[in-house]
């Protein structure tokens, strides 16, 4: 004999309520305790996450590493200036970056790409060549424009990420949470400067070449299937040091500093030199300025 309809209805409602409540509670617990974006994780959980990273990397690479959690300093907005009358296209910056930032050697990942262009044509990206390979540089009639993440103030990449894995830090560096990125590569399509790079395979770093001074948003080794890019050497710049590319450049073409400090080299350049930015009509407002020092 079937139970009267209204009792079934009541049962259903109660059962439904309990199951929904249980699901909600489980969801809340998982959200509170489970993996979260490093962007919104509270400081103590961040510290735990960083310590776990240090343990994992130490185990994986067989050497002690330190992962810094240094946050942005107030009153700092990083900017970069590159003197294209000086760059000779030697690519020392490219490889200094590779070593400093633990980029994969095979498959090869370069965060900096040096484009050679004809002096007569001026800065003309569609006529540039990144694969120049002469005996000596600079070549006759050519000049060189290195391109890396422009750390835009109006970044198209952070807008498009569907999971919010990339954002701009208060000191102006656009960073990626490598543990949150799902590898959809929408940000790579959105970047007008080709500055974002994907790990198409498991990255490899040769033994003994690991840079053990890391930052959780910067040069810690990335897994396969995520996007990475220049972070203005966040592990160095947040400890007051110049990025590796700035220090290694043999001709002093690279300048770095705090845009908000009126005494900085960057401000001097903006005030006294003719600066240009790439693809400025796209209104990305890069913090990477090219200038002619001569």
């Amino acid at each position, binding site marked *: 004999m079937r139970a009267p309809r209204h009792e079934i209805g009541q049962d259903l409602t109660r059962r439904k309520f309990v199951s929904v409540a249980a699901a909600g509670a489980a969801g809340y617990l998982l959200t509170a305790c489970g993996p979260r974006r490093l962007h919104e994780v509270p400081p103590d959980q961040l510290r735990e996450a960083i310590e776990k990273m240090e343990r994992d990397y130490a185990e994986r690479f067989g050497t002690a590493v330190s992962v810094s959690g240094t946050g942005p300093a107030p009153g700092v907005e990083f900017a970069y200036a590159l003197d294209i009358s000086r760059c000779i296209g030697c690519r020392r910056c490219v490889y200094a970056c590779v070593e400093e930032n633990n980029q994969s050697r095979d498959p090869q990942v370069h965060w900096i790409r040096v484009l050679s262009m004809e002096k007569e044509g001026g800065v003309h990206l569609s006529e540039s060549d990144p694969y120049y390979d002469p005996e000596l540089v600079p070549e006759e009639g050519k000049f060189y424009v290195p391109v890396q993440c422009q750390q835009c103030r109006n970044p198209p990449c952070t*807008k498009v990420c569907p*999971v919010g894995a990339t954002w701009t830090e208060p000191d102006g560096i656009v960073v990626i949470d490598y543990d*949150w990125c799902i*590898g959809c590569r929408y940000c790579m399509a*959105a970047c007008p400067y080709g500055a974002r790079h994907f790990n198409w395979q498991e990255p490899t770093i040769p033994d003994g070449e690991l840079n053990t001074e890391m930052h959780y948003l910067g040069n810690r080794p990335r897994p396969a299937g995520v996007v990475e890019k220049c972070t203005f050497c966040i592990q160095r710049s947040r400890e007051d040091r110049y990025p590796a590319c700035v220090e290694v450049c043999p001709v002093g073409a690279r300048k770095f500093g705090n845009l908000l400090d009126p005494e900085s080299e960057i401000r001097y350049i903006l005030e006294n030199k003719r600066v240009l930015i790439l693809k400025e009509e*796209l209104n990305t407002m890069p913090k990477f300025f090219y200038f002619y020092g001569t």
Partner: protein
Amino acid sequence: METLRMFIGFYAGSLRLVSRGNRYYWAWITFLAVLIVSGALAYHEQVTVGLSVTAMRDQVSWGLYIGNFTFLVGVAAAAVVLVIPAYIYDWKPIREIVIYGELLAVSAIIMCLLFVTVDIGRPDRFWHLLPPLGHLNFPESLLAWDVLVLNIYGVINFVVVTHILYRAFHGKPYNKNIVVPLVLLSIPMAVGIHTVTAFLFNGLAARPYWNSSILAPQFLASAFCSGPAILLLVLQLLRRFTHFEIRNEAIWKIAELMAYAMFLNLFLHGAEVFKEFYSDTEHLLYARYWFLGLGEERTLVPFAWTAVGLNVLAFGLLVVPATRRNWVTLNIGCLATYFGVYIEKGMGLIIPGLTPDALGEIYRYLFTATEFRIATGVFSIGFLVFTLMLKVAVPITLGEFRHKPARTTS
């Protein structure tokens, strides 16, 4: 209890239906199964080695998968070509077959979601998209919008068809209060899914080939001709192999609507070509690469002109009533539409958009065997789902598959 019995009866009955068929049916199922297994093995290789097994690289970071995804979103949206005459104009010939458009939409949405899954670098992290555990960057990210609208559209269509079919299975009419609002909602949703998909391309200032206002209308136009193309072929097959009846007028009307959609598609493409070639800025490089090649780089040129040729042929065959009513030319027109749009909206959208890349480099993308196997595997899953759903839906609509109520005991 009766509810459960009815449900089990439906399932058991459906299983019986799909496990019986003639040799063409089994040949088709076997063919799809082989492709699915091949795709699964290829996907395993991709997951273990990495996306390097595809031809995608930093310079061309989207390829076959996203091209197919874009095309299939269009196919899913095409259900609206049937829904509007059926529900808004209450035109009976199409009213009888609208459900097949909705089934196609569900299969297409499944394929879209699968293509996105096989494309992302970390499929194990897909839950990062789903609140509350994940974080969906809505409303800033168009991909977040796409995730929402595609799933909502898929659910709407799924609920509508299963409700209608389940009720029909029991010999009862469907509940208008459920179906009508959902169906009416599916109309703007159909336009919505394809508009959002178009927006996710045309919002990118970094890619001038995509950064064009007409991309959204163009997507809709090409969707409204390519989706029904498959449907017309399927409906004719159903007519041939089952007792399914469909009036010729319905087929011809759909073909006529496809012709107008194709005209709009060609017109919008023409408008784009004019703007690029006449203004003759550097943004022309991408269209030039597609249609004429750049210097020695001419990999895509044959595809470009094949697509144009097929589209023009399709338009011609479908707009002229005589060729539209002739079954041979109609089917040629449908195939031409399908493949023409497939080329120009799949590879023909993605690759020229990314070539030359942001720094002017030309990388010749041509999908690898592994990529092709995975893509055919996904298509096969979609076709299999569609086939199985049809195998159940057709007998239900014909009244051949009905619930047999148990003798009630009191």
